[in-house]
Each structure stands twice: as C-alpha cells, then as structure tokens.
C-alpha cells in the first residue's frame, strides 16, 4: 500500500491516476490515520494543491462520520434488542394491558383521583360522625322543648325553664324555680305585653328592667288564641315611664325587611338581628311572621322592630327542626289585645299606631339605648 501511495503521489500526476478507487483508498487510510507521517505530509501537500482531491476528502470524511454514527446506532439497537429478548413481554403485557374488567381499568386510570375521593370520603365520614355526636345535645334540647310545646303543638315556646310544662299540667304545684321571658311596655303607666306561654300558670310574676330593678306585676289580660298576655306593674316603687319611643306598624311587613329584637335569654339584654323571611308562621299560621333571627329560650315575648322603630311583632317561638326559623306574632294582634283592656286604664301615653316613632332615623345603637328601658325581663315564680 505505501508503495502505491508513493507511486500515485510522487510519480504519477493526478490526471493520470489509474483509477479513482486507489485515491479513495488513500483518502480513507488518511482519514483513519493509517498513513505514516511522511505519506500524510505528502498527501496533505496534494490536497492543498488539488481542490478536487480536497473536496473528495471532505465528502468522504462526512460519509465516514455518518456511517460511524449509523453503525453505532445499529449496534446500540442490537444491544437493546438483545436485552429486550430477555424480557418476558407476553406476561408483562398481560398484567399491564387495559383490563377487560372496567373496574380494574378505572382503578388504574384514576388511581390518584380515587385516592383523593377516598380521603374526602373519610373526611366527610369523620365530620358526619362529629355532627351526629354534637347533635346528641341538641336532640335532648328538642325533646325537652317538645314537652313544653304541648301548649302549642310542636312549636317551641322560648321559655327558659323547661319545667314550665309540668307546671302547666299541674298548676296547683308550687313553682320550684324561676323561669322567664321578655316583655315590653305598651303604656307609660306600667302595662307590659308578653307571650301568654311565658306567664301561663304562674304563681307570682315580676318584671326586671335593664337597670336591674324588679317590680311585681299581675296578669290583667290573656289571649290564648294569639298567645298574648298583658301584665300591669302593681308596685308602688314604680314611677312610670317616659314617652313610649316605638309605635305599632299597621301595615304588613315585606319579606326581606330588616328587623331586630331585644330580649333576655340570659340575665342581660341581648340584641338579635335578622329579616322577615315569610309572611306566614308555623305550618302556615297567618297570624305570625317567620323571621330569620337566632332566638333562644327567654326571647319569647320580646318586641320585633323594624329599622324605623316600628313594632312589627312579638317573638313567640321557633321551629324544632329548622334552623334560623323563628316566629313572631303580627303587630295587629297587639292592637287587638290592647283594645280588650279598658281604654281609660291604659292612660294617655300608651302605645299607638298613629304616632310617629321617636326612633326613626336614629342609628341602631341609639335606638337600643332608648329602647332598653322599655324592655323587661319577665320572672315567673
């Protein structure tokens, strides 16, 4: 071979080269580094002098590189095929292919989603359990309130003392403890209106104002049909009230009207706010409104007022099973009840529907400041 190279390069001009094949062989040997230094130098000389040779070198270089990459890829593939042959594709595919059973397929596709769903399920089970757990207390309360509500079927009457019921059944028994509700003044000379179920069967009645002063009262009028009672302060320490700030609303309230109540579910006066949610009360009772105010035992008999300080009704109860549904006797029955009392005895400064409320335009806090003196806790012994 080297002899041939010398022959071509030194003794034969390129044009006279016997054939291209020998040039190709030399180019390949050159590119693969098989020529000795002397021959390499000689060939590079030829390459510099002859553009055709140079071009052939470049293109052969490219070809060899392509071939080498191709060969490497083929060898790699061969290797991979060999490895592939060692894998039991058949049985592996059987375990992995879409399962004929839809369930397994769904499970595989939605593994993660199912995991999330499962955790939700666990979470909701836990919360349902805890709600049920909490409900135990409520259930007891409902049961007790149902006992009370024999007075008025299954409507809860919001009387603080659950033993009111036993007292109702046997009024002769001395009342062992105090229970109460709320009432409000309808005249300046000490007439107070409340629910009948608050005072029904009482041995003795007292009212307590927001300052903590107690006055003895007696029942002067009861209206079992509308669950209204009117009490009269018969205490010589009672000095009378100043002008009643609120008036009776003659028209029906609209659904959605903002209303609030003041009452004594505990020893201090408590504000409850909400709105009229229906024009009929418990099981379609048209003498009542349904209001969305959270009321508690003790709120019974409290005044229900609108934003302008007009008396919309009297809080009288709430429904056992439904949350946020309280009932209020409509204001026109207040008027009816007041008419039943000798008009002279009510005095001049009494609650009426004709005057303008003194609370109109006042802020809620100012309204309540003025109202506080007219809302009483009813204490029953």
């Amino acid at each position: 071979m080297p002899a041939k190279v010398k022959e071509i390069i030194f003794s034969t001009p390129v044009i006279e080269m016997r054939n291209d094949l020998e040039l190709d062989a030399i180019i390949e040997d050159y590119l693969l580094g098989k020529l000795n230094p002397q021959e390499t130098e000689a060939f590079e000389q030829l390459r510099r002098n002859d553009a055709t040779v140079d071009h052939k070198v470049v293109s052969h270089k490219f070809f060899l590189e392509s071939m080498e990459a191709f060969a490497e890829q083929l060898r790699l593939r061969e290797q991979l095929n060999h490895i592939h042959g060692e894998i039991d594709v058949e049985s592996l595919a059987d375990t992995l292919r879409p399962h004929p059973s839809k369930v397994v397929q769904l499970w595989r596709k939605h593994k993660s989603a199912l995991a999330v769903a499962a955790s939700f399920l666990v979470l909701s089970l836990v919360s349902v359990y805890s709600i049920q757990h909490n409900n135990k207390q409520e259930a007891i309360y409902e049961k007790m309130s149902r006992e009370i509500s024999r007075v008025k079927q299954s409507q809860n009457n919001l009387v603080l003392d659950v033993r009111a019921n036993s007292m109702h059944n046997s009024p002769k028994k001395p009342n062992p403890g105090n229970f109460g509700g709320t009432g409000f003044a309808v005249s300046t000379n000490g007439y107070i209106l409340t629910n009948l179920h608050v005072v029904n069967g009482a041995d003795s009645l007292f009212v307590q104002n927001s300052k903590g002063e107690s006055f003895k009262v007696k029942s002067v009028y009861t209206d079992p049909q509308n669950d209204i009672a009117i009490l009269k302060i018969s205490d010589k320490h009672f000095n009378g009230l100043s002008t009643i700030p609120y008036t009776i609303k003659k028209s029906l309230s609209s659904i959605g009207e903002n209303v609030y109540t003041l009452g004594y579910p505990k020893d201090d006066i408590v504000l409850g706010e909400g709105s009229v949610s229906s024009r009929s009360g418990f099981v379609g009772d048209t003498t009542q409104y349904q209001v969305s105010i959270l009321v508690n035992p003790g709120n019974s008999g409290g005044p229900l007022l609108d934003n302008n300080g007009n008396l919309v009704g009297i809080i009288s109860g709430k429904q056992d099973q439904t949350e946020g549904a309280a009932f209020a006797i409509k204001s026109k029955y207040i008027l009816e009840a007041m008419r039943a009392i000798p008009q002279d005895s009510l005095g001049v400064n009494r609650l009426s529907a004709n005057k303008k409320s003194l609370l109109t335009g006042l802020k809620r806090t100012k309204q309540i400041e003025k109202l506080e003196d007219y809302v009483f806790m009813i204490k029953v012994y």
Partner: protein
Amino acid sequence: MNNSLKSSVPTDREVILGILNNSADTLNKLYKGYYAMVLQFILNNNGDEDDAKDVYQEAIIILYNKVKEGNFELSSKLKTYIYSVCRRIWLKKLNLNSKKAGNITDYEDVFAVEEDVEQHEEKDAAFVKMQSALDHLGEPCKTIIQDFYIHNLSMQDICEKFGYTNTDNAKTQKYKCLQRLKKLFFQHQ
C-alpha cells in the same frame, strides 16, 4: 416479574456513569428498569407490544446519545425523562397515523422534551438515508460494507468469507461498493 424488574433499577447516577463507561450491565438494568412503565403507557393508549418496543428503544437511544454527548443534565428523575420522551414520541406517532390521541392516559409526571425528540428525529433521518442507500446497494456490496463498517470485520475476514483469492481483490471490491454507496448516499442529500 414486575417486582423483580423494579428492584434492579439502578440509581440515576449509576445509569449516567454506566453509559459514559459503555457498561453493558447498566444498559441492561436501565432497559429492564423502565420497560414496564412504558409498556403500560402504550398498551393503555391504543398501542401494542411492538409499538411499546419501538417507542421505548427510541427513548433509550435519545437518552444514551444525550448522555454520550455530555450535555445531559439530570434536572429531573430519569424515570420522568424517559416517560416524557416516550409520551412525546407516541403522541407524534398517533397523530401521524391519525389515530385517536384526544385523551392520553398518563401514568407519570411529564415535562417538555420536544427539543430532544426533534434533534433525535433529525439524526434519525440521516440514518434512514444511510439505510436506504445500503438497501439499494445490492449484494454482495451491502454485506461487505456492513461487515467492514458496522461489524468491524477486517479485510482478511471479508476476503475469506466471500472467497476472494487475495485481500487486494477484496479491497478493490470494497472500494467499488463504497463508491456506489457514496453516490447513492449523496444523491439524496
């Protein structure tokens, strides 16, 4: 089978070092390590075992070349990389055959590997050209060339294998074949 395959998966670092050192053992473990994952993916997305083999081998080759070129940065888990590449290749094939590719069912995280796959496709086009040039060469040229350039047989071996009287004859034959092959190869350039 599945478990035994998984248990032998080498760590990502081992794979990279193994490929750089031409370790056949590492390649073996790598291949067996993630084959089941890809097989499951293809089988559940309108493919069969052969599709899985093709796609998976493409992906392994892409990874192999990338590591060999020295520009493979282990920015994610190797498993995720292989899965993403396979997913990309399979999606392309599905689109090409206008098979339904609407909702691919995924089994692993995916990240962008478009560039790697495209680079590979360019290279692959050159290989296809070489292959077709070889196929057009005809015998015995094809085998002589393959034996010399791909299987690295010496001219002596080729001479004996094809019954040439001396190596010079074999060499002449080889260069004749090579000349034709180059012509075929560059024709389609």
